[in-house]
């Protein structure tokens, strides 16, 4: 299914959800209301004509003034994919989890939390995943400054 058709189904069934539909980029994306991400995800998964059954990735992007949570969904049956974006505040980025709708999101959300500090409310096990538990800060933020040392191990380049 083409992106346009998906868009039509989306605005028809979930009015007010989509804030923006951008087709100028190489891959089109939808900016959805961050409060309604669960609704959108569940709808995309269950709609018989869409059936986005696989979540490929949850990504966080630091845009400077705001954060973006990006969801890549695809349908194995129909072969089409969508990219959803939710804009979050930079001060306290937080969005509802979709890990109960897509179990695949579990680790991706943990990683996004770990590296960017986006809090996924309702996540069953929101811990750091790649970095040690006592790591300070979220490295993928643009304003992150790498610590000089970690537990006495120097971080300075050779």
């Amino acid at each position, binding site marked *: 299914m083409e992106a346009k058709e998906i868009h039509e189904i989306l605005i028809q069934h979930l009015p007010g959800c989509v804030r923006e539909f951008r087709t100028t980029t190489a891959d089109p994306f939808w900016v959805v209301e961050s409060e309604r991400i669960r609704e959108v995800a569940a709808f995309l998964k269950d709609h018989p004509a869409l059936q986005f059954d696989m979540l490929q990735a949850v990504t966080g992007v630091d845009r400077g003034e705001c954060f973006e949570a990006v969801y*890549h969904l695809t349908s*194995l049956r129909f072969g089409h994919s969508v990219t959803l974006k939710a804009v979050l505040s930079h001060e306290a980025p937080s969005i509802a989890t979709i890990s109960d709708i*897509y179990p695949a999101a579990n*680790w991706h959300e943990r990683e996004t939390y770990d590296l960017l500090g986006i809090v996924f409310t309702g996540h069953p096990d929101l811990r750091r*995943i*790649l970095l040690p538990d006592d790591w300070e800060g979220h490295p993928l933020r643009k304003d992150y400054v790498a610590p000089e040392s970690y537990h006495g191990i120097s971080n300075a380049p050779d």
Partner: protein
Amino acid sequence: MVQSLKTDEILVNMGPQHPSTHGVLRCLLKTDGEWVREVWPYIGYLHRCKEKIAEKVSYIQFMPYTDRLDYLASANNNLGWAMAVERLAAIEVPERAVWLRVLAAELNRIASHLLSYGTFGMEAGAFTPFFYGFRERETIVSIFDQLCGARLTYHYARIGGVMRDLSPETAKAIRRFLDEMDRRWVEYNTLLSDNEIFVRRTANVGIIPADLAIAYGLTGPVLRGSGVAHDIRKAVPYACYPKLDFQVCIGQGLKGTVGDSWDRYWVRMLEIRESVKICRQVLDGLPEGPYQTKVPRILKVPANEAYVRTEAPRGELGFYVISDGTDKPWRCRIRAPSFCNLSILNRIARNCLVADVIMILGSIDVVMGEVDR
């Protein structure tokens, strides 16, 4: 008396240094005797902030870093990254370069699956398959020697083409290898795949039903082992794959249930054969022409974003790249197949034996360089 004995579940750390955790993966097992009740994987021991590095180096400079993601399939990673950048910057790649990339990727897929064959056998307790797998892998690695001058971190693809042209001698060496691979493949099966001990160890172990596999976002041989015929090379055709004739191999439950460890293993074995087939076709149909196109030395990519999916040996390798007009990506997200595949471990490795956990882990075939990035 039996009732009065104190029994308790114990927690055992499998890893980060353990012979069969494929690198530095730590699994915490909750065991009741030999029975494993729960497995919690802990990752991150090999975390090298690849995504942060990507933001600090230019598009061209990040290419050698992608070698080190899934270090057993560098050529596939290169391919993914090159395609992502080319898509963002709208660079046309000469046809010959596309075919050469596919050739490298498929050879690397064979090498990767061979290693998987070997280590899987080793985890089952058989040492010899490991050496046989490595012997053939060594031939591929030597071919890569000639092709790009490196044995592990190939850095073969370049943005806008490939590093070097295929010489006739290398082409001959590849053909020789492909013929030998056909012979060896039979031997492999006699030694391991059909061995009843091995079959008993892997069949009906760690069954992943198709719906669970999809829900957890599994891709590659793990997903296909569950009987889902999903291959990015067919689903979202890229490079020259539409022009090639090959099959998507799926698990059929030949020795047990669909989606068990043996099926995942068998899908890899079948894919070796398919890749051999693809390599032959590529060598036969390799178009003439330049192998590189001119790309500015400082490649400034206009603001854009793309999610490029390729089929790496372990599944869907996705590069989600956001460019901002400079020569460095604003954000690069690497959707690593092993990362997603590993996330199901806790779900399927329950109520099985310690030995089964090893086999399940082996059949998922993770590469920690990719999981931790």
